[in-house]
Each structure stands twice: as C-alpha cells, then as structure tokens.
C-alpha cells in the first residue's frame, strides 16, 4: 500500500507538472463550454423536450471531447517508461507490476475527474447568474456524470492497454483512439440492427450501445447493467495490461 501511494503521488505529480495536462484541460473546457452554449441556444429558440443537461450531453461537442480525452491522457503511461527504459529501474526496485499498473490507472482516473469538474461548474454558474431561473434537474446531472465516470473508467483501461503494447506514444494514442471508436461504432451498429429487424438483438444492444447509455443516463435513468458491463470490462482490460507487461519480460 505504501509503494502504491508513493507511485500514485509521483504519477499525479507528473500529470500536473506537464504542459500536456493543461493543454488537455483547456481543450476539454473549450469543448464543454461550446456544448453548453449550444444547448442553451437550442432551448432559447424553441420549446423542447429535453433539459439543459440532456442537450449538453447529446451535443456533438461532447462526443468530440469524449473521443479526444482518452488517447491524450493515457498514451504516455507505459510507452514513456518503456522508451526511456525507466521501467527497468522501476521493476528492479521492490515494486510489484500490479502496483505500477494501479498507480498509473488511478492517477489517470483522478486527472480525468479533474477534467470534468469545470463542465459541472458550468451548470451551477449558469444557475447562479440566472438567479435559479434555469431548470437543471439534479437527477439528470447525477446520471450524466455517473455514466461519464463509468465510461471513463473503461476507456482509461483501454488506453492503459494500448500504451502497454508499444514504446511509441503516437502509436499508443492511435491504438486507443481506434479501440474506443470501434467499441462506440459497434454499439451504434447494434442499435441500428435492433431497430431494423427482430427483437432478439435489442437485449444485447443494451449492453454495447454507448450512445444509448449516455442518452438514458442523461435523462436521469440510472441503469445498473451498463455500469456492471463497463466495470467488468475495465477489470478484464486491466488484467490484460498486466499480462502484456509481464509477457514482454518473459518473451519466451
């Protein structure tokens, strides 16, 4: 546990002392700001079914940040250690591979949460400047941020996995981007299929379709199935990462 804490604080430190962190933070703030502004515009022009929250989380700008964040914050994790060779000094010190992986993973999750904080503030600031006139349903807010966090856990695990595969950060970024996009498209495709044909796909679809998850959570419906789905896949992908890093050393 002590080793984990030492590694975690080192990882957090290298996140917050690197320029990349602030570039990503600025980018995400910009995307979220635009998404928020777009949803305010929609509600301004005509009466609409959705609320400020549902429109924000259905905006293309939200998806833009969703696809760019993960490769940017995870590409460095293991690739850099492998490139510099510091993974050798790290793993010949009394450090377990699991401790190394978890410290990097948890640090990235913490940074990810920090990235989303400003967007949460947007809603409160808006409510404050409109003197409580704006209707911001708390349930939808809780739902939205729950799904953003759970999908984040899953996608960061994918990013870790991609980064463990290569020494090259660019390759790691492209790999994780492709994997996250593929998962997303697979969900969208399943959704399309279930709309097209028989009912038997519909059940399966509810597990894969990220769009559907975002929509239902953003309207305040907290469904435990996707949460379990994402968390169990997170565990799977992290254990794969462990396998890759150990296998690299075995190289039979």
């Amino acid at each position, binding site marked *: 546990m002590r080793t984990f804490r030492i590694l975690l604080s080192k990882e957090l430190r290298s996140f917050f*002392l690197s320029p990349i962190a602030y570039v990503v933070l600025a980018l995400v703030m910009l995307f979220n700001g635009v998404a928020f502004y777009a949803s305010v515009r929609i509600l301004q022009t005509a009466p609409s079914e959705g609320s400020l929250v549902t429109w924000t989380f259905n905006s293309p700008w939200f998806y833009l940040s969703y696809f760019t964040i993960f490769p940017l914050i995870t590409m460095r994790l293991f690739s850099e250690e492998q490139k510099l*060779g510091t993974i050798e*000094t790290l793993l010949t010190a009394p450090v377990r591979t699991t401790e190394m992986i978890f410290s990097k993973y948890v640090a990235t999750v913490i940074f990810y949460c920090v990235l989303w904080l400003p967007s949460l503030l947007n809603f409160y600031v808006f409510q404050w400047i409109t003197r409580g006139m704006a209707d911001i349903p708390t349930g939808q807010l809780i739902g939205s941020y729950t799904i953003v966090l759970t999908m984040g856990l899953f996608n960061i695990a994918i990013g870790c996995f991609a980064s463990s595969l290569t020494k090259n950060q660019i390759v790691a970024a492209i790999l994780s981007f492709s994997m996250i996009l593929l998962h997303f498209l697979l969900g969208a495709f399943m959704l399309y299929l279930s709309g097209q044909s028989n009912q038997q796909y519909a059940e399966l679809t509810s597990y894969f379709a990220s769009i559907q998850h975002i929509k239902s959570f953003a309207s305040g419906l907290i469904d435990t199935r996707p949460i379990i789905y994402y968390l169990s896949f997170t565990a799977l992908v992290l254990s794969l990462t462990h396998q890759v890093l150990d296998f690299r050393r075995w190289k039979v």
Partner: protein
Amino acid sequence: MIDVKNLTKRYVGRTAVDNISFEVGQGEIVGFLGPNGAGKTTTLRMLTSYLPPSSGTVSIAGFDVFRDSLKARKQIGYMPENVPLYEDMRVKEYLYFRAKLKGLSGKDMRERIGKVMDRCGVTDVRKKMISSLSKGYRQRVGLADTLVHSPQLLILDEPTNGLDPNQIRQVRELVKELGQDHTILISTHILPEVEATCDRVIIISEGKVRASDTPQNLVNRLRTAGTISVEVKADPSAAADKMTRIVGVRKVAKDSVDEDGWCRFTLRVEASSDVREELYNMAIANHWPLRELARHHATLEDVFVEVTQSEQV
C-alpha cells in the same frame, strides 16, 4: 552473495544465455566481461529479476530472485545500461522518490540522500532538471540511486559507458572505495579498469562462461604470456639454434635481420619460466652485442581477445 545455477535464457530461435553457473562471494569485486551481444545484459537483468529465466535459479543473499523477488531486490543496487532516469524530475526529487520506493523514510532518508549525493558528487546539481544534465552527471545520479538504500550488492551495467577519461577515473576510484563495504558485479569494456579494480573476472561469450579467475591467473595462463623478444648482432641461424637449446624455450621465431647485422627474435617460453638471464649469459659468452631483451606482459585485453575469439583457455 550471488549464486547462479544453470541459468538459461532462450528467446524464439536463439539462446541468449546458455546454462551458466557462477558464484560471487561476500565483499568481492567481480568484473563481468564479454563482447557485445554475448549475453551480459541479459544475465544481469535476470540477476536483478527484471527478466525471468527460462530455466535455472539465481539467489541473492539467500533469496531466490524469482520466488522471494521483493526481498532479493532490496539487497541489490542496480544501474542498468545507459542509466534510464525520469527526465521531468529534479535530481533531489528523483532520489527522494527512489529512496521512498526502496523503503526509506523520515530523517534516516534525508541523511542518507545527503550522504550519497556528496559521495557521488551531485550535490551541486541537486536542484537541476535531469533532462538538462550532462552524461557524466546522469551517470552519477544513477549511481547515487543504486547506493541510496545501502544495498549489500551493487550490479553496474557498463557504468563508464560514454564517459571521458577523467570521469572514468572518478568512477574507478568510486568503485574501489565502494568495494570496501559492498559486493560489486560490474560489466564493462574498459579492461585496464577491470585489471585495476576487480578481484575476479568472469568472461562470457555466446552465452557461455569462458573463463572465471583472478585477472593475474588469467594472464598467466595465457599462451602469449611467455614471450620474450631479443635483438642481438649475430649470425641468425647459429643464434637461433643456440637459443632453442635453452631449457624452457619452446619455439624461436626470427622476425627480422637488418643490414647492420642486428637480428630480432621472438621466443615462446613456458609460461612460468624466465630465461632472460640465460639469454644474457649466452650473449656475453658468444660476444653478441645485445640491444634488447624484454619479456612481454600480457594484459587482460589479450586474454579477452583469445578467450572470446577461440576455444576455452
């Protein structure tokens, strides 16, 4: 201190380390030599538990590096080749991070870090970013890291790689000094360093141990150790004939004869015998003017070349 038994590392289609066994005793300074690609780094990585062996066992201070890995690692200060360091940290920060990882804390840690920074000469750069350090300083920071938890065993993979002659001398002094209270396994290509500092030498080539002995014994066993060169003014064939008859001389080779009548010979003698006195007396007795009489001291370099290029000594 180190006990290696039948250690083997196989990669797909290639055996990097082939069934090697050796021991390193407490307090020894051992030079680990071999040509590039001989399997030195692979072996050192297995000793430090970075690479798992395909078969065989390694134990460090009684701990198996595979089964008791964390305990074994605590006994080792390992400096990998090319000294990997985190570029985005300051020197002091890096050493604190490493010391904490290796289980130090509090006042003890602060004192220890101060001591190793002084010892390795990095106190004046302690606030600099590692990315801005020169090669020599990076090497010293790496060395400070290996020493920080006062390990019993130091494993240094080419610590003098890329340093200038002054820095190499400093590292040699430091290694000698450290050798008083540490066991050291050091891999290097700079053979005079090894001769000057190491108690024992292990030479490996193509994944096998080719020789393991003190530098002096290795040199003595070498064929080229028994060479004497003589330059006299005499009739070449008569002189050669007479010299061949001296006890202990195996072979006389005539190198050159110049127009003034000076002949050069190279005599191959038994490794243990020194026939220079007989040669001198023979020259006096035959009235041969003598202008050179020298015994060649073979160096570890000769041993290295012979061992790694041909069969076993």
